[in-house]
């Protein structure tokens, strides 16, 4: 715990905030996007926005694994979960994500055997303990969680598990970022980069952001002090007229990532030609499916998955939230029709989603500003 506490130290936080204030140019507002949902969560949880000067604004990005899952994939998952005798496993966050008719939690209450797991290895253990039943793991996440799915599948293969499959929804972070950077109405001045993803893929992968799009990025850890320091580094880049990839999270992130993780990912996964993203539409080469060598573990191959594509609900503005175009509270249904207990969009479900973070933690923002 000492390790964690150290990075939450309030005095250091205040000192960093003072440095940011001193370095920021009040006449030149800086709009920064934190890419990763983990950052969004920390920013609200520690109300870091309160510590920033008016000229530094944070915008929330697309890096929340649950938020980007489209309704069609949820419906497919529910259809699978309803298969007789099948055990459907997924992370807890997924249970409340709305499909077009219902959530996995609803399906569970109606009798589907849906079980929450904390890691893909838990799902594999369930398969081992239930040799006469099919067990499906619904895999989600960016490059951060993909290696553990890959390692689990490698182990399943080594053990010759015949009743374990994976419905793979792993996505990659670069394609949606490129899509974002390509959009004509882009008004971002820099990025707080995804620390956990970079522990796997390295910082090199993000060099295109300054090189091709002229925006700086600082790879950041997840403690409040990490985030403040990264913001300070971005402010300094502006001050010095620099534009580059910097690494704040050096205690964990190497430039080239984790070669062993990348190797097992390359063995188990291959890029899908297309993948549908919640609110962002279909993005080419943006998601991972199972490779030829692992086809037998692919739930979409073994079972009859409807493979439906369902349009996002009309009222839902998750896409605009994920792109940072609107703030959560600007969505038409925020907090009224769409709440954490009855969510319309995905961003309201995951604790890393911007809408949930704002609803759960941020509703004080306005009274505070009025003071």
């Amino acid at each position, binding site marked *: 715990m000492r390790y964690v506490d150290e990075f939450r130290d309030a005095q250091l936080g205040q000192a960093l905030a003072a440095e940011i204030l001193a370095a920021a140019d009040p006449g030149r507002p800086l709009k920064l996007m934190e890419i990763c949902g983990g950052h969004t969560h920390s920013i*609200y949880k520690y*109300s870091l926005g*309160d510590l920033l000067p008016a000229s530094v604004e944070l915008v929330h990005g697309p890096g929340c694994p649950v938020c980007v899952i489209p309704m069609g994939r949820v419906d497919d998952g529910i259809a699978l979960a309803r298969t007789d005798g099948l055990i459907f496993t997924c992370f807890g966050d997924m249970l409340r994500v709305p499909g077009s008719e219902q959530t996995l939690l609803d399906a569970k209450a109606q009798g589907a055997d849906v079980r929450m797991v904390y890691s893909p290895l838990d799902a594999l253990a369930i398969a081992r303990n239930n040799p006469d039943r099919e067990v499906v793991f619904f895999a989600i996440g960016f490059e951060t969680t993909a290696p553990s799915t890959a390692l689990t599948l490698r182990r399943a293969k080594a053990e010759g598990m015949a009743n374990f499959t994976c419905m793979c929804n792993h996505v990659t972070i670069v394609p949606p970022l490129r899509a974002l950077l390509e959009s004509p109405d882009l008004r971002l001045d820099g990025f707080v980069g995804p620390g956990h993803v970079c522990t796997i893929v390295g910082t090199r992968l993000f060099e295109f952001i300054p090189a091709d799009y002229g925006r700086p990025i600082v790879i950041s850890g997840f403690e409040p002090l990490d985030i403040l320091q990264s913001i300070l580094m971005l402010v300094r880049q502006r001050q010095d007229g620099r534009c580059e990839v910097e690494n704040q999270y050096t205690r964990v992130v190497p430039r080239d990532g984790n070669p062993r993780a990348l190797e097992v990912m390359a063995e188990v996964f291959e890029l899908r030609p297309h993948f549908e993203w919640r609110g962002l539409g279909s993005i080419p080469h943006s998601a991972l499916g199972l490779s030829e060598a692992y086809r037998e573990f692919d739930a979409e191959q073994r079972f009859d998955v409807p493979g439906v594509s369902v349009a996002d609900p009309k009222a839902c503005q998750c896409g605009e939230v994920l792109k940072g175009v609107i703030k959560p509270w600007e969505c038409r249904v925020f907090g009224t029709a769409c709440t954490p207990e009855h969510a319309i969009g995905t961003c309201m479900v995951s604790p890393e989603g911007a809408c949930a973070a704002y609803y*759960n933690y*941020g509703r004080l*923002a306005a*009274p505070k500003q009025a003071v």
Partner: protein
Amino acid sequence: MSAPESLTGGREQRMLAIIETARAKPARFRDERITLAHGAGGKATQTLIEGLLVPALGRPGSALAQLGDSGAVLAGGARLAMTTDSFVVKPLRFPGGSIGELAVNGTVNDLAVSGARALALTVSLILEEGLDTEVLRSEVAAIAAAAQTAGVEIVAGDTKVVERGAADGMYICTSGIGAIDPRGTLSSDAIVAGDRVLLSGPIAEHGTAVMLARNLFELDASIESDTCSLWPAVDALLGAAGPALHCMRDATRGGVASVLNELARAAGVSVTVRAADVPVAPSVAAAAELLGIDPMYVANEGRLVAFVAPAAAEQALAALRSVAGCEQAALIGSVGQEPPGMVAVETGFGGRRVMDQLVGDPLPRIC
């Protein structure tokens, strides 16, 4: 978040006002099926109680409609409190306690935080076919021992057995009756702006201990449940603060955060908690960090929060700290007026944020 506030602040504020109005309305129960979230003590439980149970079972203004931890009844001039609770914890035994001990302490504590000393309990056992009688024996012994420690008599009981698979080992229901202590006049309505919020000890130990006892995580930490009778703590508070003690709750399911939300809502006040003043054992904080759970939402079985008038707060705190097990009691926050029904946290960084009710159930069957 900050830059365009002059432009959007007004709009944002209007939006937030709409949300608070919507939240203040009585909950309507619209769910089609019961899910685990309805048992978690958070938002869904509240909706079930306020939207279905109370309208059907409680007269307006009745003891039930007040949604306390127990209901007050008048019997021939004696003021009594009555309550009931059921226990479905998994696993049955965990470091620091077991289902039998919980079943006694849970009901004794519901009475205690209503200002009532438990007089008598009833115990119902629901047993699963095939249960090892050694397990039953040891849980009955645990019930007896906890009752003795709490100074309460078991006066009636019941036993049912259900087929294998229809229960998970054993479930226990206890009901209790207690005498309301004349030193206190406790009610959520008594909470007023200015009150201080006291917490009787470090939080989240019970929930974390049970969670780790399930061996779902490769995590080795020696964390023990905090289950214990809260009467000694209540006795000390009543003695030190008397009528300045306005309200108490034991922070079970949904943790301290849920209890504060319930009371803020019931009393129509706001509560601000200073995160840095909330005692959490380092091992518990570390485990919660790994599990991705905020300790404020984790169940306790031997911790209470008390609302005390400011003038009596220091005295009440000192009295509380002199009780065995409450040495780390702390003043964690205070009551304000605006916005009604909202609980806020002052983070260590000097920011303020909302601490909302629990949604969903990260830890089912914790008690």
